[in-house]
């Protein structure tokens, strides 16, 4: 896909129900803009996000995937984000090892009170993905060259 000035990335944001989804709601009610490229999927907890979902998003055309959850220590289920943190640390490290650009994946902890952080996070993430251009390396999960 040629990179044009009008190119818009597709960004999937997984947000936990208790903190980050509420943080996104607060960003909305505070009218804190971020690019429309971001589409949010609600999950009960960051620990619900399976690496499979992330790879699937890339396979189907996402250019960046971000996972937002409660701050460590504040998980509604007490421990969910700690597991999510280990899983995503390893998964992202593996993607890096495979030569996938680092800026396409991110984890950020956003509380229900951090509407500003939510909006700022999305702005900076989209900016980074835009700079990277369309996702090619994970866009086609087949390897045949």
């Amino acid at each position, binding site marked *: 896909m040629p990179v044009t000035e009008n190119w818009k990335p597709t960004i999937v944001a997984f947000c936990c129900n208790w903190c980050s989804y509420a943080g996104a709601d607060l960003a909305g009610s505070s009218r804190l803009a971020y690019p429309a490229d971001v589409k949010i999927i609600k999950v009960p907890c960051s620990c619900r996000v399976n690496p499979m979902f992330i790879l*699937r998003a890339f396979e189907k055309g996402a250019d960046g995937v971000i996972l937002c959850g409660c701050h460590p220590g504040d998980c*509604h289920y007490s421990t969910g984000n700690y597991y999510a943190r280990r899983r995503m640390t390893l998964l992202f490290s593996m993607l890096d090892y495979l030569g996938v650009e680092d800026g396409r994946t991110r984890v950020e902890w956003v509380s229900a009170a951090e509407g500003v952080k939510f909006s700022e996070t999305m702005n900076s993430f989209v900016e980074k993905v835009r700079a990277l251009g369309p996702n090619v390396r994970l866009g086609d999960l087949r390897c045949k060259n």
Partner: protein
Amino acid sequence: MRRIGVFVCHCGSNIAATVDVKKVVEMALLEQGVVHAEDYPYMCSEAGQSRIAEAIREKQLEGIVVCSCSPRMHEATFRKCAERNGLNPYLVEIANIREHCSWIHKDMQEATEKAVILMRAAVAKVHLNAPLLAGESAVTKRALVIGGGIAGIQTALDIADAGYHVDIVEKEPSIGGRMSQLDKTFPTLDCSACILTPKMVEAASHENITIHTWSEVEKVSGFVGNFTVDIRKKARYVNMDKCTGCGICQEKCPSKKPLNEFNRGLNNRSAIYTPFAQAIPNVPVIDASACIKLNTGKCGICEKFCQAGAIDYKQQDEIITEQYGAIVVATGFDTIKLDKYGEYAYNESKDVITSLELERIMNAAGPTKGHLERLSDGKAPKEIVFIQCVGSRCSDDRGKPYCSKICCMYTAKHAMLIRDKYPDTNVTVFYIDVRTPGKNFDEFYRRAVEDYGVNYVKGQVGKVAPQPDGSLLVHGVDLLENKQILKKADMVVLATAIEPNPDVRKIATMLTASIDTNNFLTEAHPKLRPVESPTAGVFLSGVCQGPKDIPETVAQAGAAAVKVIGLLAKDKLKTNPCTAKADELRCNGCSQCANVCPYGAISYETKQVNDHGIREERRIAVVNSALCQGCGACTVTCPSGAMDLQGFSNRQIIAEVDAICR
């Protein structure tokens, strides 16, 4: 193919001004399975809901997508609407096109495109939604209140009056909390003990209240309606049933070194002690670290003098286990440590004190028997300086970012009382702002200034310097006059910030209740559910939730009690059906899921299965849906995909991903 209906809300102009709702309807009709789509100004209104009802009936809808505000706002509304009209409430999905779309985007085309994608994701998901049935669980009709201050006492009394049994767990030897340490209360200046003691007595004598003092919550398990709590009853070394409260033991005890906590360490107490005269229960405890008998084996004087034979040096901590339907946290506050505020010389001079220490000094039962005197030399102070906001409204990490709320009023109270009782003593108050919202509060403050001649100076104090002559030189500024002030004082009183009791972090962890960066417990909603914790069955009372004064605390205590009563009045509770479920033909029985479950909801059974003709015994994971809270941690540890989360299944989330990325 499921028959889906899509309903697009304008939310007045909130959505319609930025999203072309007609276009969303048009695009919805192109989606697979969508047999009905319409827009309406207010879907959540009576009229909007009746349109949904009509469509369910006329188009035989099997799934609904409402494109509207956040599901946190109206998901429950639309689910109930579906249920009333014969559709399972879990066959409703919300596409959040307000908070996540119209409110943050300005360009209509861009916002409309996004709204269409969010609608598609919701349609894709609802095709895979399973009709779920909420389970039921019984309610234990007994409540636990953690903390026996005014908040805990009031909550307990209100619950008990409604006919439910309440246990109060208090870690100190007596109930009463901070309020019992206060001398007078604003804005009426009635004596704190005079209004608190009757409530303490009422709680102690109430047939529905059990008080566990000198006790702490050790462990909490279970869930709303069915908590199991271990309470550690610390060894008191005094038999509660035998003690008559005569007090001779305290009089005779030779160990008089320990600092008196009740008097904020301003004087000493004996090793065996009741914290204050009106203590409830009026049964002393032995401070094991200071007791000569417990440390050396010699002494035993209290035992010798106790005519009731109540002393028992062999007593051990005891753990009792109780069942509760609801838990109220009322753990209160303490003042912050002043170690980081060297400029106020608090650790250097005995005559620099906190306001709570002043309360004890002013109190007839306090270390100076109520006489206002300097702790260094016992002289009556002639110049007193009050410094406001010590550690409150602080922008660095030495103090707290919030306003402690009560300081302006208690300082006005202190200033007024001193000027009233000691008219020749001058009082100066350094303040940033004087905040007096509250019934009769501003009138009270003005009386201090206008009738009692208290000198209020707007400005902060940079330094308090102890002088060789024993006085204190206060370096301040007067912002209104724009000048430096050097003031010699005999006593300096610091309006020290309050913070949640440090134990609350441990308790919040046990309860899986969330806590904010300042250690205040978080409400389920800051405005609409201020006395409930986000953890079902856990309620908040008093300063553990945020700074507040006595009337506010009592009001919140009552509100928490009402919520508890409402819960205990139910015979059965509906449980969240969005729980994990294991597919027994896919399960390996490997136990990984159980290792990450925070609720101990997963167990294993050896079960006969028929896997496409292969009949064998297998170890299979089984989820207790009453314990499962639906976080989904187990689903990701499961390599075979046997463990799935109802309402957020693997296939549902993949469908959303596909719809967004296509």
